[in-house]
């Protein structure tokens, strides 16, 4: 039975490859049906796998004697997996309409499905080798999504994405070589895998290795100083791909850091060391800087990308504090940010699709044209700012509470303060669009407005994601209980 974990990984990858190699389909309809079916089947397979083979180890093969490729579905994997599925399915069906105005749809969906499968593999990876393998593949297979439009800017953004990500991957590999030497096993297990006898006397070397690995994964998560690719790559992609990249793919970096810190080195090994301080500092710098840059950015998709930079570092800060509450907050924010950022990018995409407008200041009166869309945008924005009753409020509450209770000198109050300032900035860069969209002002020419609400294929996924982000805030206990138990286990 345990082989079942392979199905949600292999099925989308193979169907993606099938799409890539087969010749152009006769009509668009059959392509969409194929993709839709693949997404649904993968979802079913993934949920079944999560329900039936939880915590079972499945060894695929041995890369070398000491490097087995194996899968195991654990709690963290389930959280990231479910978030991934929701966003992938919603953005996928959004794309059915949106991708009409792009070329090479077959290629786009081919890579889209491959990325989906690889993401599932990352969530279910049972040890560092497997994770690293699929981490590299994720970069390689998601690059075509970034440069899909084929404009010079997009191709350059794609290459930038590729090289930054690979740089991160190689930093991970550097740490990998060292931890391999001093660990009992590289399978993810709660607590530390370091062999105390071997590691004795090499603490500073291992701290260095841990730091390099954290930095390596944080490239993917867009942490300062390795964030520059993110604001180039995410806006360059077609909107549904931006949504997936910004909502889910960056989380692969977060997942990597969780695995390294909490499942390999162990939090107790890093608590109170220079690694923790440097990491927290960088995360806080990123939180503030991302928000500030987003505030100054006029192009909507770029603004959202800067917002991602900032918000992911909320999560990273939560992980860096290494306190149960902060960790819970961080993981909750993984869920909330994914849902919200997907909504925001899809809204931006729908606006581009319907009106061709890309800059935030062009969006006056947009609420009169697309009321449903802008309502979704507004609700999601409130979630990102952290206003109750949305999910974002709960996650930020936990983050701040965790930081305060951790008692780490300096950071215990600087952290929450930075988070608060950033929340204000977030309101400052997201809500003006709502305001000028619904209340364009007296001098506005209402005559030029016409109904431009996008079709149901676009609206429904957006509405669904918005609803989920609110539900996460209304009934947070379901999530917090689950996550808090998880956090208690691994800390």
């Amino acid at each position, binding site marked *: 039975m345990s082989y079942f974990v392979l199905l949600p990984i292999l099925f989308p990858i193979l169907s993606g490859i099938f799409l890539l190699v087969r010749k152009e389909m006769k009509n668009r309809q059959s392509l969409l049906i194929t993709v839709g079916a693949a997404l649904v089947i993968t979802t079913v397979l993934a949920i079944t796998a999560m329900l039936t083979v939880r915590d079972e180890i499945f060894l695929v*093969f*041995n*890369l*070398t*004697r000491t*490097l087995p490729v194996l899968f195991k579905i654990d709690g963290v994997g389930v959280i990231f997996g479910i978030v991934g599925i929701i966003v992938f399915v919603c953005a996928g069906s959004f794309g059915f309409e949106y991708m009409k105005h792009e070329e090479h749809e077959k290629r786009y969906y081919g890579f889209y499905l491959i990325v989906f499968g690889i993401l599932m593999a990352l969530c279910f990876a049972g040890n560092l*080798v497997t994770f*690293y*393998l699929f981490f*590299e*593949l994720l970069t*390689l297979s998601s*690059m*075509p999504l970034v*440069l899909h*439009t*084929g*404009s*010079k800017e997009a*191709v350059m953004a*794609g*290459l930038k994405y*590729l*090289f930054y990500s*690979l*740089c991160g991957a*190689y*930093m991970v*590999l*550097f740490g990998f*070589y*060292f931890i*391999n*030497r001093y660990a009992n096993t590289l399978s993810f297990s709660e607590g530390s895998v370091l062999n105390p006898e071997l590691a004795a006397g090499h603490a500073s070397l291992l701290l260095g290795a841990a730091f390099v690995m954290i930095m390596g994964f944080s490239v993917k998560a867009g942490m300062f100083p390795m964030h520059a690719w993110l604001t180039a790559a995410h806006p360059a992609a077609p909107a549904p791909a931006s949504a997936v990249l910004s909502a889910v793919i960056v989380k692969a970096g977060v997942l990597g850091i969780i695995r390294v810190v909490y499942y390999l080195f162990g939090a107790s090994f890093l608590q109170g060391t220079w690694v923790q301080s440097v990491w927290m500092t960088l995360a806080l710098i990123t939180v503030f800087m991302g928000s500030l840059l987003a505030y100054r950015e006029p192009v909507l998709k770029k603004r959202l990308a800067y917002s991602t930079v900032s918000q992911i570092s909320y999560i990273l800060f939560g992980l860096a504090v290494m306190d149960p509450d902060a960790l819970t907050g961080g993981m909750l924010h993984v869920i909330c940010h994914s849902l919200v950022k997907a909504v925001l990018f899809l809204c931006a995409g729908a606006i581009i699709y319907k009106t061709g407008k890309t800059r935030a200041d062009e969006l006056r009166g947009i609420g009169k044209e697309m009321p449903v869309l802008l309502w979704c945008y507004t609700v999601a924005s409130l979630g990102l700012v952290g206003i109750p009753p949305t999910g974002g409020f709960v996650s930020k509450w936990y983050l701040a509470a965790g930081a305060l209770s951790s008692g780490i000198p300096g950071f215990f109050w600087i952290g929450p303060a930075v988070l608060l300032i950033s929340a204000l900035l977030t309101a400052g860069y997201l809500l003006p669009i709502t305001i000028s969209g619904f209340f364009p002002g007296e001098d506005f020419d209402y005559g030029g407005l016409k109904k431009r609400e996008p079709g149901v294929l676009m609206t429904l996924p957006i509405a669904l994601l918005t609803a989920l982000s609110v539900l996460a805030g209304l009934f947070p206990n379901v999530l917090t209980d689950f996550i808090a138990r998880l956090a208690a286990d691994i800390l």
Partner: protein
Amino acid sequence: MKESIMLLVILLPVISGILVPLLPFKKRRHMEIFLEIVVVINSLLVWGILLEFPEESFTLARFTGNLTISFRVDGMTMVFAGLVSALWPFATLYAFEYMTREERERSFFAFYTMTYGVTLGIALAGNMLTMYFFYELLTLVTVPLVMHTLSREAILASRTYLYYSLGGAAFAFISLIFLTIYGSTTDFILGGALDLERVGERTNTLLLVYVMAFLGFGVKAAICPFNSWLPKAGVAPTPVTALLHAVAVVKSGAFAILRLTYFSFGTDFLEGTWAQSVVMAITMFTIVYGCSRAVKETHLKRRLAYSTISNLSYILFGAALMSPAGMVGALTHMVFHAVMKIASFFCAGAVMHQTDRHYVHELNGLGYKMPWVFGVFTLSALALMGVPGLAGFVSKWNLALAAVESGNPLSYGGIVCLLISALLTAVYMLTIVVRAFFPGKDFDDRAVSEIRDPGWKMVVPLVVFSAFIVVFGLYSSPFVEFFQKVANGIY
């Protein structure tokens, strides 16, 4: 009697090579069949020797004292001779199709086949003198291949090649003299044959001799600053660049250095001395230097040549670690890099043969027109970068493990160099892949409409090498275990 077969595998290709211009072949096809049969038979004989190897050495001639020309099969021989004999038949097949566009085929194939025998001579050499003899011979038989096109550029390149190689061999010769005086024997013995009593106070002199010999043999392995002949020699027809300048000739240099380090001077004598630091620093510098030049280079074959420079120094870095694990890493990379690089060179050659395009910026949009060639090129690019599951990952893994194991801070720096090099490899290889498959929006498809994949003689070797790349990547354990036995003197 059984031993004399060692001489046969050296002489058979040499004599057949000499016969090629003399025999009255009516058609080109007859020459092809003759050569392919000779090469395949020779390879089978080599494999026969390797599987049923004679314990005794075979002495052909005896000069004064213990200076002899003698042959012996040991683990290193098995690796190098096995590698060369596995690649040669495929390279010859490829050359048949490639050379249809070139002139003076007969003289080309004459020297090409003779090189096979000479390379085996290096592999089978039982002592320093024999190896030195064949090493010089290798230079002489390959010079005509470099200047094959007889263009001004080719003649200049062959002159550079000649001067560099002969100069290097002169330094190597010095070490031969010192080894005859201070060594108990010049035969290759794992662990070295220096007589430490005779060395006495002259340790530093001998270390200097070692460094000089390392650099001398390093000329063929294109070590910095003696590398400029290799990119220049890229004017030779692609079968030469691919087989000789990525495998046979340059790896003879690496092979000779391994012999010198592990079998003549011995790691006990060298490890931890200033000589080790010097040679290791040189290899580390070359690793990064080669890659950086490759990134800058726009000529396709020269770019791959710079990549070879960098990768050869991976092998030498393994040699410079001076531990059994380092030797395992070196041998792994020697074999695995051979397959990866010959595959990428053959792809470059196929592009040049089919389209007459030589520069990277001319490759836009060729991916869909030559799916086999660029498919294999992509695979070899990923393998060279070290994506897990492909050959390059395993060899880099072994090298890095050895470096971590050594505990020497300088070799930690070597790991950093390896990873920087991996990133740069991604830059110079994947930009080509991206160009070929994602030519961008304003690309005119008509410019490439006539272009096709080459014929089966070119495609078959490509597919075989790709299969090797994947097999080495996924099932490396038997190979690596064999290398471990070699490094520990079991073979």
